[in-house]
């Protein structure tokens, strides 16, 4: 805790200085000069950012960086990745070691306001939940009074857990285990009644680690909000616009039904003015952002729309349905600001 306070204080000082020094467009110009986007990613979180068997980074967080590179440089592969731990991530962004941080980072007030960062979008709505064995005979988290709970220490997960039980006037016994493999092993061997982490994590643990996934259920209560999204440093509004609209274009494309496969056809034949604006048939959007008019076309052609990225990474790797991350028209929260 103490280290975090010191770090935050140091980070704030630097952020203040950096904000004064940074000139508009400095990051953007830097990226154009070197010809690639330096992207901070998780050191390994399947579905979000993980290296595949060939050592290439993959995931929905990785796709945000690829989209930004496609929009700015016209090539989704013009990205270099810097794997970062949770403790390093903000320093790396503030010191200019990376251009964008896309590392399942929860947007919060302090991070946005005090650390000199700008959250440019939410590419994954997550929240903390509970995994229990069916044999426990519990159907709601409110029945968990007195339960033994396996949890990883030092995370917001642990704090949310304490908050939730205190608010409900219930007691619990935490079993704190640092290593995720050991923590899940402890849960599946019956050392604790409940395992808690973000819902995306619970789903993957249930499908991949359980001997028989059907013996376990995720309780319906989600006890915290974890809006995860890409972050840039304050001070270069033009660059933060590029990342924001690169991600937005992916969602907008899904709303319009533009996919990697049909994008050429849509560009040539669509009469929908929204699609024509998005794909640069009607020029103006690229110019407004200081980008090539084909910026969104490049994203969709090379990376795909949001739904495709989600499908390919989160659904395929973790077996997670869209849930909160469905489009607003399907009852989810993904709602693109209009590209116009």
């Amino acid at each position, binding site marked *: 805790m103490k280290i975090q306070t010191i*770090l935050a204080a*140091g*980070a704030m*000082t*630097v952020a203040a*200085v*950096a904000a004064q*020094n*940074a000139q508009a467009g400095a990051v953007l110009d830097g990226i154009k000069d070197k010809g690639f986007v330096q992207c901070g990613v998780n*050191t*390994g*979180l*399947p*579905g979000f950012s*993980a*290296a*595949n*068997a*060939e*050592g*290439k*980074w993959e995931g929905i967080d990785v796709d945000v960086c690829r989209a930004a590179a496609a929009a700015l440089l016209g090539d989704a592969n013009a990205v*270099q*990745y*810097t*794997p*970062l*731990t949770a*403790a*390093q991530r903000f*320093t*790396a962004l*503030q*010191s*200019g*070691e990376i251009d964008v941080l896309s590392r399942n980072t929860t947007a919060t007030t302090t991070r946005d306001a005090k650390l000199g960062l700008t959250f440019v979008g939410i590419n994954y709505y997550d929240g903390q939940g509970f995994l229990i064995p069916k044999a426990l005979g519990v159907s709601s988290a409110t029945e968990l009074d007195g339960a033994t709970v396996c949890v990883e220490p030092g995370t917001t997960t642990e704090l949310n857990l304490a908050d939730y039980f205190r608010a409900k006037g219930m007691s619990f016994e935490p079993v704190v285990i640092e290593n995720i*493999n050991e923590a899940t092993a402890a849960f599946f061997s019956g050392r604790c009644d409940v395992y808690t982490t973000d819902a995306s994590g619970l789903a*993957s643990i249930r*499908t*991949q*680690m359980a001997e028989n996934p059907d013996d376990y259920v995720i309780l319906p209560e989600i006890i915290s909000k974890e809006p995860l999204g890409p972050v840039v440093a304050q001070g270069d509004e033009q660059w933060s616009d590029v990342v924001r609209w690169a991600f937005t274009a992916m969602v907008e494309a899904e709303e319009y039904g533009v996919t990697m496969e049909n994008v050429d056809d849509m560009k040539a034949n669509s009469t929908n003015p929204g699609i024509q604006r998005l794909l640069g048939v009607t020029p103006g959007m690229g110019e407004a952002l200081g980008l090539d008019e084909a910026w969104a076309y490049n994203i969709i052609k090379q990376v795909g729309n949001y739904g495709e990225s989600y499908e390919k990474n989160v659904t395929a*790797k*973790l077996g997670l349905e869209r849930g909160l991350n469905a489009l607003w028209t399907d009852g989810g929260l993904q709602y693109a600001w209009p590209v116009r």
Partner: protein
Amino acid sequence: MSENAKLPPLPTGTFATRAITWSKKNLFDGWFNTILTLGSIAFLMWLIPPIVEWAIVNATLSPTIEGCAEATGACWGFVNANLRLILFGTYPFDEQWRPLLAMILLMGIICGSLGAVKYPSFRKAIIPMWVIGVPIIAILMWGGVFGLTYVQNSYWGGLPLTLILSSIGVIFAFPFGLLLALGRQSHMPAIKTVSVVYIEVIRGVPLITVLFMASVMFPLFLPDGVTIDKLLRAQIGIILFTAAYLAEVFRGGLQAVPRGQFEAGDSLALSYWQSMRLIILPQALRLVIPPTVNSFISMFKDTTLVVIIGLFDFLGTVKLALRSDPAWTKYYVEGYAFAAAIFFLICFSMAKYSAYLEKELRKGERR
């Protein structure tokens, strides 16, 4: 004749009777040893068969998740399927011959240097080998010249990274540690104080703190836009840390050299450096071979800590592979067992070499 009478009688009889005599003397000598022997046998019989069954008999090498799901034993298929990721990390797939070549070259130089110690005529070749070899390794890893594509070192990983971190660590920590040890023995107060403070401060903090500071705090103090490479920061942290420990090992060696040796140097009118180089250090360093190698082994294993600053050493790439696909995650025991085996192999070789070196350098005394 009287000399021979003191020796134990030569074993006689058939192999079986000799075996019985031997085991009576060594294994069943009294009730306590008998219980210990039987207990140990029972323990091994309880321990070993399940391990053999798991690791060999029921294991599978099939590099697919389905193949592993069918096997009741170890899933070595995890290692098999992800071998290149485990060995080379996120280094671009098509360019992985470069770290492979660099690693072979580095091993060659290390083995060459170690072997050359025995043959004085080859000793002169050690320094040129490193001076030529290290730039070649750097060119192979980084590229950017001779038509090799440039590879940022945030992509380096696996065994090459572990070997680079530890061998560069040894090369720089050794002389630095030696200087610190000499500094601590110095008669000049300024040098002595600086050395003592440095050694005590560094020994007083864990390596993980040094790495954490180097990676998280240090960049905050640099001017805007200036970044020092993450790998370089970690490497310097490891060197500074190991040097402090080596300094104390060397001090032990220096203190064990009899005072008369120093005086002998003085009486021959040798300068400080001459007497150190020709008289003191050869004796002092030979005395501390075991603790020095001990420090190196511990440093080699400490390089795995770089995982906390987002670098993937060999253990880190095993973790990376475990997370490459959630379906592999449950085979972490196999992954860690493989990493442990490789680490053991390297550390054990270091220990064996140290024993050999001691024997080699003690020949003068045995005569």
